[in-house]
């Protein structure tokens, strides 16, 4: 997998906001079919990295290539083939679920949109929500509808920003299993940010741990644990958050 042409390649990304450096030379890549976790304590630079990769924020320096194309030169072409879901965005609450999905299906140029919507609602086990008002959905239902939106265009790359935040363990487990299944069936590549270590362990083949805008650790969850002599990924996270690991990692 590491030798395949990357789906996404971030090269020495720097993002400076005023006096603060949010990202300091971040480089990484995602191979086809790979699932990469982006981890870090609050303020580590995960959200900034995600926003740069989505073209919502421009980098101070560095380059992003997705499908081998420069993000800023081929933005629309790239956006057609990727999608995004976040716990911090929602679909218009005053429309019905099928109306929201129809609008986005048309925005992404999905052929036979109603058929695709029905397939996804069934896949996500939310067919009964087709005619529900989006604003009346529970957190779990809303997450699954957002995921349906994110899968409408059969993306080659899916960017997920804490997709299981605010979900109960049962629904979170279902979402993780679904993502794994989709990945196995479609060869989808995923970039996943989460504070839930279980998400990362279950969904991600590899992780990058950011700290102060730099890569502190990189590898499979097992490799990272072993390198820092920690009992679990969560233990590693806590160690970073409490300043016990930073010095070792950045050496």
């Amino acid at each position, binding site marked *: 997998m590491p030798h395949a042409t990357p789906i996404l390649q971030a090269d020495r990304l720097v993002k400076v906001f005023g006096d603060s450096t949010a990202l300091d030379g971040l480089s990484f890549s995602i191979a086809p079919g790979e699932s990469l976790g982006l981890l870090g304590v609050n303020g580590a630079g995960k959200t900034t990295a995600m926003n740069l990769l989505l073209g919502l924020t421009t980098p101070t320096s560095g380059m992003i290539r997705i499908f081998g194309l420069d993000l800023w030169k081929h933005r629309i072409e790239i956006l057609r083939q990727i999608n*995004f879901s976040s716990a911090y965005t929602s679909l218009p609450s005053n429309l019905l679920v099928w109306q929201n999905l129809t609008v986005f299906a*048309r925005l992404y140029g999905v052929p036979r949109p109603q058929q695709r919507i029905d397939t996804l609602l069934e896949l996500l086990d939310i067919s009964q929500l087709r005619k529900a008002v989006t604003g009346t959905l529970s957190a779990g239902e809303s997450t699954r509808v957002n995921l349906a939106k994110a899968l409408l265009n059969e993306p080659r790359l899916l960017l997920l920003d804490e997709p299981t935040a605010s979900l109960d363990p049962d629904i979170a487990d279902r979402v993780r299993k679904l993502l794994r299944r989709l990945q196995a069936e479609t060869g989808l590549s995923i970039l996943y940010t989460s504070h839930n270590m279980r998400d990362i362990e279950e969904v991600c083949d590899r992780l990058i741990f950011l700290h102060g805008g730099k890569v502190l650790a990189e590898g499979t969850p097992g490799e990272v644990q072993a390198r820092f002599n920690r009992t679990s990924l969560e233990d590693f996270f806590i160690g970073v958050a409490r300043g016990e690991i930073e010095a070792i990692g950045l050496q």
Partner: protein
Amino acid sequence: MPFSFNTVSALVLRYVFLYTRHPVRFIELIFWPLVDLLVWGFLTVYLQNHGAGEFPATVTFLIGGMILWDVLFRSQQGVAISFLEDVWTRNLLNVFVAPVRTVEYVAATCLVGVLRVGVTLIVLAVVAALAYGFHLADLGLTLLPFLANLMLFGWFLGMVSTALIMRWGQAAESLAWAVPFFIQPLAAVFYPVAVLPVWLQPIARALPCTPIFEGMRAVLSGFPTPWRELQCAFLLNLVWGSLAAWFFAANLRHVRKTGLLVKVATH
């Protein structure tokens, strides 16, 4: 520049869904303009009946001014409120990470403006004719370029309002309603430019809507179509449109650079 009508129609479809699902939303389009029309309509009736001959019959231009001002205002609102709807529903990021070009997004909001104007204009024109005998059609074919110029200027003000809200965040959302009223005192909506202090008149004449309101009064007073005024309005709109597009693009670049776009979209 590449442009997709499918993308624009998908964005407009959202508003069609919204308005057809919530007919109460039409109240916003109809209620306030009707209140305005009733106030200006009755004032016109009073001036005509009790002015002891001091006011000419053409005082009906107050009603005309109100209706045409509403065209400009609704057009501006179409752009600014469409953007705010995305902010309020936390949907803006979904739209900005979809394959939507900025020009398509702006075009869709402008089209929403046209739809809003259409609904309001029909209602106002009918009520003005029935209640006050004011016939917008009396403006003849001149009405079309009048409306087109006002809608264009409304779009440009909407782009400026949106750019300011992007830059200053939701705290500045009242600008979506305030921006048109900054210019209203100078726009000669209800009175001629000549009434303004001499030093203010050049500023008033730099607004594309001023020649339209002046032209409307001229036509209602029986003068021929003021083509020169219309040309002037169109040229001013070209200038204002270029400035608004530049201002919008510059602010979009700024909010992308500073991360404000994400902040506006997620707070």
